[in-house]
Every structure is written in structure tokens, then in C-alpha cells.
């Protein structure tokens, strides 16, 4: 991948066309994966729970776009987007959602627990906030091993009042660990609005309490997320310690597929849908690197074909043999 350069003028990243198209494609892959998964779930074809990240693609891609393959991420119950943005194949993603042998975790983990060490994905996580201290530990491991990797924790606004948030970020702060803490603030913790659980106007104010930088970002603006993430990642890689990013965004679906989301007004949903990160980035590309309807069509069609093939792969994959249910308890 071509490394993007930073312009001297505004401190704003100038993405070259190749990189921009790559990031755009990643967003489209997430969007189409999530939409297809939602349809399959509604048809009763996928077991368990499904938490969709449609609408939040720019956070996953903006942050993971600033990372190397050997950097680590911890993710959340709403983790498909992060993992795809980190480079996951849709075939093994779908296979995991179907609970098949070919899934990333052989169907032992499922939607909420996808892990892949090769991609640096230390795990989606069904426990809110739990990935934060784990990412701090990955940062500690990086520091002790003396590599220049970075560990990123994604978490939602629901996690910010857990003990794990406080303990994990504080530990990373006092030890200058190479971590980036990314709050994907979609304004609701399940059904509870953010203003009900937070007395301050922005989570980033808390960064000061830990003695680390905090940055509030428009989470539906891919370039803004990418810029902020690059600053935080560079800082971490340089051994200067962690950063807290708050990316304001919105999930189009409810907390889970099937949640009618009666707790939020329809006008609010429409407001945010009008700020869809994908067309916004298309507009940016048109202005800065060149992008037209034919480009758009090519990406969407290629991804649609990938999604269809991935679903077919998953559906044709064998069920995991039952012995596997007892195989992996211990090393």
C-alpha cells in the first residue's frame, strides 16, 4: 500500500488516489458485509446475536487504515467492521457467523468473539470494556519486546463508565504504553443516551485526567478519523504514550438486528443517514483525487461479487466436528 503523505499546510493528510480507493473499498466491504449479514439473520440463517456497524464504517477504516498489519486491535461486540478494516476475508467472516469449520475460529467464537492473530485481531469481545486493559497489555508486551508496533482498543460509549476503561487507560498512561484508545461514540449504550451517563460535553475531557492527549473527531468523516488516528499512532510508535480518540458516529440499526430502537426519534436517524460516511468520502475523492460513477460502480460490483462468493463459501463449508467443542479448552 502506498503510504500517504501529510501536507505541510494544514496538517491534513493528503491521500493519494490508490490509498483513498483502498480505504473506500474497505468501507464498502463493511457496509455490504453488514447488510448481507442482517438479511441472512432476518431469514433465520445465522445463529446467536448480530450487532451491525452500518453507519460507523469511517471509524473502523480511518483507524485501521493508519495501522500496519502487525499492529494489534481489540474490538467489541459490534466488531465486524474493525476486523474487516484490519484486512479480514469476508469468506472466513461469514463462515464464522454460520458456525462453520472454515470460520476464523472454527465456529467456537461466533460474531462477538472473532480473533485472528495473523491480522493482529486480538479479539472482538462480548464484555463491554474488556478489550481496553487487554490492549494495554498488548502495548506492554510491545514495549517489553522493544518492537514499534501499536495496540488499539476500540470500544463504544457504553464502555466509558466501566472500571476496565479507567484502569486500562490509566495503566497505559503511567507506563507510556504504545496504545490508542478509540471510543466509537454512537450516542447510545444499548438504549441509554450518552447524556444520561456522562456529565461532561465530551469524553475527551477525561483524557486530561489521565494526563494524555484526547481528540474529538467527526467519526463519519473518514479523512478526519484517518488524520487523528495517524497522529495518535505516530505518537504511540514514537514511544510517547497513548491517546484517547472520541469518534462521534451513529449506528443505523438498533443495538442488535431485530431491535426496533424505540428509544430514538426517526428524525435523528434520518439526520445521521444524511451524513453517511460513504457518500461523504466519495465527495472528498471527487474533489481531491478524482472519482466518478464508473469508479463507484466498479467498487460496489466487485464487493457484491465478493460477498456472494463469501456467503456461498460459508454455506458450503462443513460443520465443525463436535469433538472440536472439547479440543480447545486447554493448550
Amino acid at each position, binding site marked *: 500500500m502506498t503510504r500517504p503523505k501529510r501536507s505541510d499546510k494544514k496538517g491534513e493528510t493528503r491521500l493519494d488516489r490508490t490509498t483513498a480507493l483502498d480505504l473506500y473499498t474497505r468501507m464498502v466491504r463493511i457496509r455490504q458485509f453488514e447488510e448481507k449479514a442482517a438479511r441472512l439473520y432476518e431469514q433465520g440463517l445465522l445463529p446467536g446475536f448480530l450487532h451491525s456497524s452500518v453507519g460507523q464504517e469511517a471509524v473502523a477504516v480511518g483507524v485501521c487504515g493508519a495501522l500496519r498489519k502487525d499492529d494489534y486491535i*481489540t474490538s467489541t461486540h459490534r466488531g465486524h467492521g474493525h476486523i474487516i478494516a484490519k484486512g479480514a476475508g469476508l469468506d472466513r467472516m461469514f463462515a464464522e457467523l454460520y458456525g462453520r469449520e472454515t470460520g476464523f475460529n472454527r465456529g467456537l467464537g461466533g460474531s462477538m468473539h472473532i*480473533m485472528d492473530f495473523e491480522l493482529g485481531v486480538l479479539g472482538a469481545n462480548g464484555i463491554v470494556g*474488556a478489550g481496553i486493559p487487554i490492549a494495554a*497489555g*498488548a502495548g*506492554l508486551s510491545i514495549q517489553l519486546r522493544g518492537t514499534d508496533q501499536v495496540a488499539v482498543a476500540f470500544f463504544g460509549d457504553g464502555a466509558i463508565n466501566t472500571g476496565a476503561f479507567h*484502569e486500562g487507560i490509566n495503566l497505559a498512561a503511567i507506563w507510556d504504553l504504545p496504545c490508542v484508545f478509540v471510543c466509537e461514540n454512537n450516542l447510545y449504550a444499548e438504549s441509554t443516551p450518552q447524556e444520561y451517563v456522562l456529565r461532561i460535553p465530551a469524553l475527551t475531557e477525561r483524557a486530561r485526567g489521565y494526563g494524555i492527549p484526547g481528540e474529538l473527531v467527526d467519526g463519519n468523516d473518514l479523512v478526519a478519523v484517518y488524520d487523528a488516528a495517524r497522529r495518535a499512532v505516530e505518537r504511540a510508535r514514537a514511544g510517547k504514550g497513548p491517546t484517547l480518540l472520541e469518534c462521534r458516529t451513529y449506528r443505523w440499526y438498533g443495538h442488535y438486528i431485530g431491535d426496533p430502537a424505540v428509544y430514538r426519534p426517526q428524525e435523528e436517524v434520518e439526520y445521521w443517514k444524511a451524513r453517511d460516511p460513504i457518500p461523504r468520502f466519495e465527495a472528498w475523492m471527487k474533489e481531491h483525487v478524482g472519482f466518478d460513477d464508473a469508479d463507484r460502480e466498479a467498487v460496489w460490483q466487485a464487493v457484491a461479487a465478493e460477498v456472494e462468493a463469501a456467503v456461498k463459501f460459508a454455506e458450503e463449508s462443513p460443520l465443525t466436528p463436535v469433538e472440536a467443542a472439547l479440543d480447545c*479448552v486447554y493448550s
Partner: protein
Amino acid sequence: MRDNVLMREALREALDEEMARDERVFLMGEDIADPMGGSYKITLGLSTKYGKHRVRNTPISEIAIVGAGVGAAITGMRPVAEIMYVDFLEVAMDQVVSQAAKIRYMSGGQLSVPLVIRCQGGPGRSAAAQHSQMLEAWFFHVPGLKVVMPSTPYDAKGLLKAAIRDDNPVIFFEQNGLYNTRGPVPDPGEDYTVPLGKADIKREGKDVTIVAYAQMTLFALQAAEQLAKEDGVEAEVVDLRTVSPWDKETVLRSFRKTGALVVAHQAVRQGGVGAEIAATVYEEALDLVDVEIARVGAKFAPTPFAPHLERYVIPGKDEIVAAVRTTLERGGRFGAVGQAAAQRAGAV
């Protein structure tokens, strides 16, 4: 071989030797660096020897201590996280139970979590309800965790070294009442390990099997001596050493020899490790006609503060002796070992 080494010294030697052997091993916990060297001095001198980057003081943040241990373990390190009291692990239960224990499983076998969580605790010191619990059954109940509870300095050192080399999360539970006990331990640098999952027969006998672990093993040995002297009963004492996975084979072999079992621990009896062992032995030995099984455990109450109340709630040697006598009497077995003993048992 030295014949008089303190358990706390043996534990320190294990950490020292493993840190010297493998640079991926590091320690973190509250107050573990010098000059404090740990609340119970187990890590004294190690930060001076290996540096404060490898022996790391942490804030009072149990979630972060275990969580960071998990994160470091799955990315190539072999952390030993110290939790000052096993009671404090309650604060970090998600990281222990739903993260450390399950990551290998949820990843489909892709990741391993070579994390040792050292903790200590136990009754007998008027430490009251929040500093003297025996919580091993909580962890015993969780697939994916190993639980180790040594009773001698030799086992403590060998088991800790084995736990650090193990690729699974291990709760290494040191019973406080044993720190100042002494016993034979090989010379420093003489590398040995005690395998996890293997019980040890600490005393051979033919009349009854007493299964115990940690400090209760010492009480079981004292009880066995008393029973031999007063009742002519020869008890076999099986020290589990590793509580999970427990050594079913050794326990069953001993039970098939003696036909009578007393499982003894200081944790509360209800839902304790002893319940599982007793039930398993019963199920596996249905072919034996005369089987006698009993459990010894703490009464169902928090640990009280006042010494006489604590002694009332928490069992020790006397309760084991009483349980053996009752068990053998109930089974009509004293005929085999002496009428006088049976009469005494009847009085219990």
C-alpha cells in the same frame, strides 16, 4: 538438596530462576518491587536484580493487572501477575473467567494465554471476611483455568516453575499459613518442575483415603498420625497439588485400595471442590459394594474475625480425625482395625 527451606524462599527461587531462564517472563502487581518486595516479600530483591521494567509495581487496579496480563500473554510474553489476596481477584473476575480462561477456546485454538496469576490468602489469622477466603472452587468451576495449590516448599517451587512454563492461564494460590513452613528443596539452579495435574501421595495407608490440598494437607498428615496412634487406622493422604485439573486417576486408585474417602478443605463445604471429588468417586466406584465417603469443609458462613469464632467455622486436623472415625464407624469397618477404636469412634 537443602532440607530446611522456607516456602516463601522456594517461591522466590522459582520466580528468580524462571526470569533468568526466559526473558519473556515478567512480574507485575501491587507493591511487588523493592524496597517493599511484595506484601509477603515473595518478590523481594527481584526488581533490584532484573529491573523495574520486569518487576513492575502497578496501581491498585486488579482489572488492569489481570487484563494487561492477558494482553501481554497473547502477544508473546509470559507474565506472572500478582494479586495481593485471592479475595481481590473478585474485582477482576471478568478478566479471569471470561477473558483469560476463554480466549484460547473462542479463538478456535489459535491463541494461547500463558499467564500465571499468583495470589495468596486463607484463614487462620483473624483476617476476617474479606482477607481469608478460600475461593478455589470458583476457579475450579471454570473450563480453561488451571488451579494450583501447593502444600510443601518442594512442590511450591516445582509447581510454580511448571505453571510459568505452561501455556494456559494458571491460578497459583499460595496459602498464607504455609509461607513460614520449611522443607527439603533442591539447591538453587538445580532445575526441576512438578507436573501440573499430578497428585502426590504424602502418606501411604490402607484403611482410608484422605484427599486434601494446600494447608489442609498438613492437617491431614497430623490427623493420620493421630489416627494411627489412637485408633490403629492407617490413612493414606493424597495431596492434590493441582486442584484443576484434578488427578482423578490417583484419587481413584487410592480409593479402590482403601474403600473409604474423606475429602478435606478449608473452603466452605457447600459447592466446594470436595463435593465434586466425592461425587465423581462415588460415580466411578459404583461397582464397589461398601464405599464410605465424607466431606470436610468450612461451615456455611463468612470467615469471622474473633479467633475462637474463626476456629469454629474453619476446619482443621480435629475435624478430619472426626470425619474419618465417623466414616469408618458408619461403614462398620472398625472391625477390621480394632474394636477399641470402634468404641471410641462411636463416642465421636
